[in-house]
């Protein structure tokens, strides 16, 4: 009888998940009784995009490394100047709820010894709305490439999309970062933070 009671007691084996043990999953999903924390708080040692108790969770806050707003149109896009044959640009941006797109523009360098290609990488947390990148021809206002899956995958809680394209020297291009409407919690998490890197160099 005692063994039976012990077994019944052991039956209550609900998973024990302490707050802060997991990063937020798609659509800000968390274990039962926890919610996704939206802000990094150093003094509280509270990481963003981690599952914590609702009582200490903070709403989503995004502080860009460089504030490029307004950049919602191609014409308003931040121009990356002085890109050489081999060069790099990176920025931590924010796709807020009201944002429809963030734009950056650049011009393909002239006089390089070999053909130059652009390698665009976009990384963002899995917790919020998915983002995509597109390459546009600035002068013709035409989309000429879209992103795809990368050969290498980043850490599990991040999503990376890649866009590689061979450039025509002297041509002005625009890169559009935009939400695709997926995994946005039905509109409740239609925002995200991201890191955009633009690297010029030989193709491949």
């Amino acid at each position, binding site marked *: 009888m005692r063994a039976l009671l012990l077994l019944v007691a052991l039956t209550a084996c609900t998973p024990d998940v302490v707050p802060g*043990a997991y990063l937020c999953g798609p659509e800000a999903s968390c274990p039962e009784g926890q919610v996704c924390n939206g802000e990094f708080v150093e003094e509280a040692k509270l990481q963003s995009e981690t599952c914590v108790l609702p009582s200490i969770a903070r709403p989503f806050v995004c502080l860009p490394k460089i504030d490029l707003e307004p950049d919602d149109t191609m014409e308003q896009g931040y121009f990356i100047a002085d890109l050489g044959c081999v060069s790099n640009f990176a920025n931590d941006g924010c796709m807020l709820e009201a944002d429809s797109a963030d734009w950056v523009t650049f011009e393909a360098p002239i006089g390089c010894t070999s053909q130059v290609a652009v390698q665009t990488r976009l990384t963002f947390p899995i917790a919020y709305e998915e983002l995509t990148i597109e390459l546009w021809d600035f002068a013709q206002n035409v989309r000429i490439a879209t992103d795809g899956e990368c050969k290498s995958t980043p850490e599990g809680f991040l999503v990376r999309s890649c866009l590689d394209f061979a450039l025509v020297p002297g041509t002005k291009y625009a890169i559009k970062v935009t939400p695709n409407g997926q995994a946005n919690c039905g509109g409740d998490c239609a925002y995200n933070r991201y890191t955009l890197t633009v690297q010029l160099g030989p193709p491949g």
Partner: protein
Amino acid sequence: MRVAPAIAAMVSALVIGAPTIALADEPAPTPVPGIPGPGVNVPPPTPAPAPAPQPAPAPPGDTAPKTDPAYGDYNNPDVRDFPAPKGKDVIVVAYPERSKRNIITLGGMAAGGLILGAVGLYYHLDSRSAADEVGAHSFSGEPWTADKQAAYERAHSSSVTAGVFYGIGGALLIATAITYIVTEPEAETMVIHPHTDPKPTALVAPIKGGAVVGGAWRF
């Protein structure tokens, strides 16, 4: 053990019956010339006593009374009317076996309880496995994915299922134990009234030239 009454009967026959008959029927011993007997004055030999007169045959139609010759002319011809000596009562308690149907019922209930318990254990272990899969006590660096959510829900549902099976199986085992107790056949008590005193009886019988001493007892 059963030999004892027989031996006792034999001893009784030897000690009681034989001398009695011998003293009544044997003719007087003939003295050997020149060798006197146990007495100093040996009486002269006497003629053998005349045979006892035979009783007259019963007239036809008249029933002869049942008379045990061992009791002579005792008034009551039926020896069974003697008050039997009594010893202490012997109480025997017998426990009858369970019926086959009862055994099958109990076995079925117990087996059912065990099977349900085993099923509960399966879900219990499944629940533990799923719980261990997603349980974390420190920062894991992993996102909460759909797979983990499924494992979390499986742990919970298996836990509930295990509890249900444990409950039903345990109740069945308890019911089996109760049924086992309730349906236990009642013990049958038998009282044996001994007709003889178990105490040994000393017997002394005179015989020609002395006496025979013996005893009879039961065990």
